[in-house]
């Protein structure tokens, strides 16, 4: 067997650190941030039965982080009785989005066709966003299950973005940017987002300029949202392990730098 390199020890350390803290179950106290509150307030303030587009703009890979966010937002919207229209801009989000909606709708006794509908996937996201701005029906002549658009009760009154209260983009990448630039910029629809933590800084200027109306970010955002709707889920469970992982990375950075300065001093001497 080949000797283990330093890289491998770092990997082992991470495994152990996260694995151990996951087996411990200590709840963490987390304050609610403004942006999460804004998303909650917006969904809360809409009159019951407002149509919202939920766009599943993520792939399967980021599901661990995306799922808790999506679940909390869906639960909240269903609980308030809003009418949800699901779409997916990545092929992989298609089934995931459908499953998530199906699962949460069942919790609140919501019925397909009356309370929610799932339109499915269109490739070429910019194209999809633009054409939905003109006509949802033309973009999706049939829903994901193969029903004709006009046969779905709740969709009969929906022409384009003018008829919905907003678009909530659940994204693991920069697709929300396209929603902001093409959906929001061009067709003036209100854009809200739930994104992975990694994407937060990308969207900060859009939040600051008001082009993005609310941003629920990462596992932490999910945990906050879970607290707001008073329902524990994956976000909360991961918080302790997350904190441990952060401390681990901080320690690594510090060790790396100490080693660097030592070797530099030696080099000089």
């Amino acid at each position: 067997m080949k000797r283990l390199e330093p890289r491998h020890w770092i990997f082992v350390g991470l495994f152990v650190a996260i694995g151990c803290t996951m087996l411990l179950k200590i709840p963490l106290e987390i304050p609610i941030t403004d942006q999460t509150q804004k998303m909650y307030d917006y969904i809360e303030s809409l009159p019951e039965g407002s149509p919202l587009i939920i766009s599943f703009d993520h792939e399967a890979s980021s599901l661990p982080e995306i799922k808790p966010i999506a679940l909390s937002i869906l639960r909240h919207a269903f609980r308030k009785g809003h009418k949800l229209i699901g779409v997916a801009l990545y092929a992989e989000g298609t089934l995931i989005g459908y499953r998530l909606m199906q699962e949460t709708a069942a919790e609140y006794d919501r019925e397909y066709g009356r309370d929610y509908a799932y339109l499915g996937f269109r490739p070429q996201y910019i194209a999809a966003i633009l054409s939905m701005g003109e006509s949802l029906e033309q973009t999706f002549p049939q829903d994901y299950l193969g029903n004709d658009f006009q046969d779905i009760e709740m969709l009969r009154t929906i022409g384009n973005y003018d008829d919905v209260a907003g678009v909530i983009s659940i994204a693991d990448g920069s697709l929300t940017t396209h929603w902001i630039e093409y959906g929001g910029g061009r067709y003036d629809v209100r854009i809200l987002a739930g994104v992975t933590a990694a994407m937060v800084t990308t969207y900060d200027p859009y939040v600051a300029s008001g082009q993005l109306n609310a941003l629920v970010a990462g596992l932490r955002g999910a945990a906050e949202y879970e607290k707001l709707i008073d329902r524990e889920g994956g976000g909360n469970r991961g918080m302790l392990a997350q904190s441990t992982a952060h401390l681990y990375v901080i320690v690594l950075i510090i060790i790396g730098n100490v080693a660097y300065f030592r070797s530099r001093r030696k080099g000089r001497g």
Partner: protein
Amino acid sequence: MLFPVLATTANVGWFDPDKLWTLIAALVAIVIVLYTTYHRKSRDKFKVRQIAGISAVEDAIGRATEMARPILFTPGWGGDIQRPTTIASMNFLSHIAEKTASYDCTLIYPTHDPVIMTVAQEVVRESYVRAGHADRYREDNISYVSSTQFGYAAAVDGLISRQKPASIFLLGTFEAESLILAETGNSIGAIQIAGTDSTIQLSFFIVACDFTLIGEELFAASGYLSGNRSILASVRAQDILKVIIIVLLMVAVVVASINEISGEQLLGWWGF
């Protein structure tokens, strides 16, 4: 049934007054770009400042040739052919392919988008023809790998860890796959040149790559490498636009501050 939009919005004029400011800004920008491109005098005088990545491109090609190992170029998973970054990245590809053709160095180009693949094949083939080595062109090396993010990442990762390219070019639109590629490239000791407009990934490229073209630098460098003066001229246009933006910004801030202090609304034209 055919196109219900036609029925729903009748009697709307051709011009949408809400978009007036965008139109004016667009026209100003277009005029400036056209001026810098076609006004010979200013065009020929113009020079671009040093961008570190550019000289590194030559070194990277030279290194691969010396080591007799391939060069890997990939435009990332995030873009399609319509994305300006992809188009800028094609200029790099064209330049690099011409060099690899004359040095007889293998160029591998995996991509996630079939349209990018067809265009890249065309670009590389013509570069080989231009270099006078059409026989060295291998279409198989410019290949489509999975369109899904981590299918793509795994495929490119596999290419890197098995073909062991001496130099890796990561130029285009990247998402989370960036660090997997850059770290794997790093672990086999390749020289890596990255450039992207995906701001999130820049922090990883900066940590893991030897040279990184940040955002707009990618466009400028692509103009520079293309060797086409008209393309380069639009870099100049961008700079002129930047000066205009900064001046407008400062004036607007001063006016806004005066408004705030005096409590009166003098002007509010920047609130679009």
